[in-house]
């Protein structure tokens, strides 16, 4: 059995990750049927037609939501290692339970600060998406609506014929 240093483990992890991706893509390449068409070959842009430059201005709210998302993802990343050691019986026994109490308080402070951030953005209305407010026109036409309906009907019949 070879002794591995911490750096070697990281290196193995990187090689493994790269190998996993390459293998999956290779297997896909071999197995899948290849029937390209124009729609399939265009850039995928969340279902929208990619018609102009990608450097357009996005709504600033995307960034706010993305930042808040990152915040809580980071929280989760930190909570996983915490959860694995928090209830470690050996550590708790050697410290008369101080370990568990300590890490619990520590994590709740951490979550509390993040929660404060969420409360803050929520109360400030950052999470409300702009809803379109249709404004009713105050203009009143003298031509009755039935006249338009009549014209529409006429042009429809013309098209049909």
């Amino acid at each position: 059995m070879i002794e591995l240093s911490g750096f070697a483990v990281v290196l193995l992890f990187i090689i493994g990750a790269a190998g996993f991706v390459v293998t999956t893509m290779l297997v896909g390449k071999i197995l899948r049927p290849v029937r390209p068409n124009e729609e399939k070959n265009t850039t995928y842009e969340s279902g929208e037609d990619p018609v102009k430059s990608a450097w357009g201005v996005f709504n600033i709210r995307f960034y706010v939501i993305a930042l808040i998302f990152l915040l809580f993802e980071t929280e989760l990343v930190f909570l996983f290692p915490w959860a694995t050691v928090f209830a470690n019986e050996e550590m708790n026994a050697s410290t008369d339970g101080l370990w568990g109490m300590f890490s619990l308080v520590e994590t709740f402070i951490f979550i509390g600060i993040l929660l404060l951030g969420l409360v803050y953005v929520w109360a400030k209305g950052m999470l409300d998406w702009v809803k379109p407010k249709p404004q009713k026109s105050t203009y009143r036409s003298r031509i009755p609506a039935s006249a338009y309906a009549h014209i529409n009907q006429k042009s429809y019949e013309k098209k049909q014929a």
Partner: protein
Amino acid sequence: MVLKDQLSHIIESLSQVGFEMVLIGGSLLLLLLGLIAKRSLVSQIVYVLVLVLAMTLVPLPTDLGVWFGGALAVQELTWLFRLVFSFLGVWVVFYPTANRHPFEYYFLLLAVIAGSAFMLSAQHLLVIYLAIELTSFASYLLTNFNFEKRSFEAGIKYLIFGGTASALALYGASLIYGFTGTLLVSEMDFALVQNPALLNVGLLLFIGAMLFKVSLVPFHIWVPTTYQVAPTSAVAILSVIPKIAGFVLLHRVLLAVDVHTQYWLYVVIVAVGMATIVIGTLGALRQTNIKRMIAYGAIAHSGFLLGALLIPGETGVVAFAWYALAYGIINLVAFYMVSVLEDRQLLDVKDLAGLSRTEGYFGGLITIVMVALIGLPPTVGFTIKFYLFTALWGWYQTVVDPWIMGYLVVALMSVVFSLFFYLKVPYFIFLKESDGDVQSVTNPGQRVIATIFTLVLLWLFISPDILNNIADNIKSIAW
């Protein structure tokens, strides 16, 4: 150390950072209050209360030591500057700058002070990095608090410079860790490294982040624009508190590296200091905007403070502490005057022409502050510069190093040149005639506050007991 001892050590260490804990807790409370309360007076009161409470929790200089497994070293200077920071921080509530989001504004100011307080004692590479980042991020946001187009531009520039500096610093820290095998600055032994070329690169990169925080050349580029557009009360804090903290931190790192045995680094630091003084002074000569002029002056002052770091022993630490303290007070006063003028849109020196007809008294006070910034009697500006130059001269006679002589000459020349730009303000107020009508600028309350501020500068010159007391307390420190 077994786990149980480690935990009780950490819990015991918490009593030493009561100051920082109150600042952080108070800032979070302020943010929550902002969701309920609407009046900006509430934010100011809570801000002052938090600072005063924090001040009472500063551990006494009898109770110092190394805490959190060596990550924080609480020294006499930590004690002194924690008190100074909270004291200086309180005064910005008197500035007449209008705030659009007062609760967030004071929240960020508290964050700056808390980050700087951590910089005072941090000696773990990652804690140093976190402390610098906490201060920086709050500063980037504070730059934008006038909510104008120009301030966004300045804020983005500041953010990009700062981001680059901190990324490089992080890389430098990783190199230092790789070569020395420890993250604790106090445990590093640079003499042990056989081939230190790469280590030295890492060291330079890491020191760069601190040079950025204390606005030394070549990391000074953000200063003039940021100071010009940021709210004046924020500038008063930013130009003093992170700067002093950055110098204390820089000194700790330089001491760990043992800068006096690493001659190349010594020369680099001296050259940086000289370039800072020259560029700050020459840059200020051309300015007509008062805020921008004082910003360039603040760059030059950074060069002076760096000089004090190079002098080992008692004279060095006393020169540094005096200079830092008095510079803090002078800057706070100067920016108070500026904020009063800014309130009436008088920021260009030409706008001040003939102001003496209505504001003779206030003009006199401004003159005293400018004299203090130059470093002439009868103000405390003279005391500190005189002591600093004496200390530099003493150190030159000990080592007979032409670099120190050069430093002294450059510093003295800078004082002469600074006469030209600082005195431009009184010149326009008293000697120029204005074309149009001159309105009165100040109200009685502002005149009273300005008088109190200015009297402090004169009083510290006439009876420097406070300065001497401080010197007695800190001169035993390892510097």
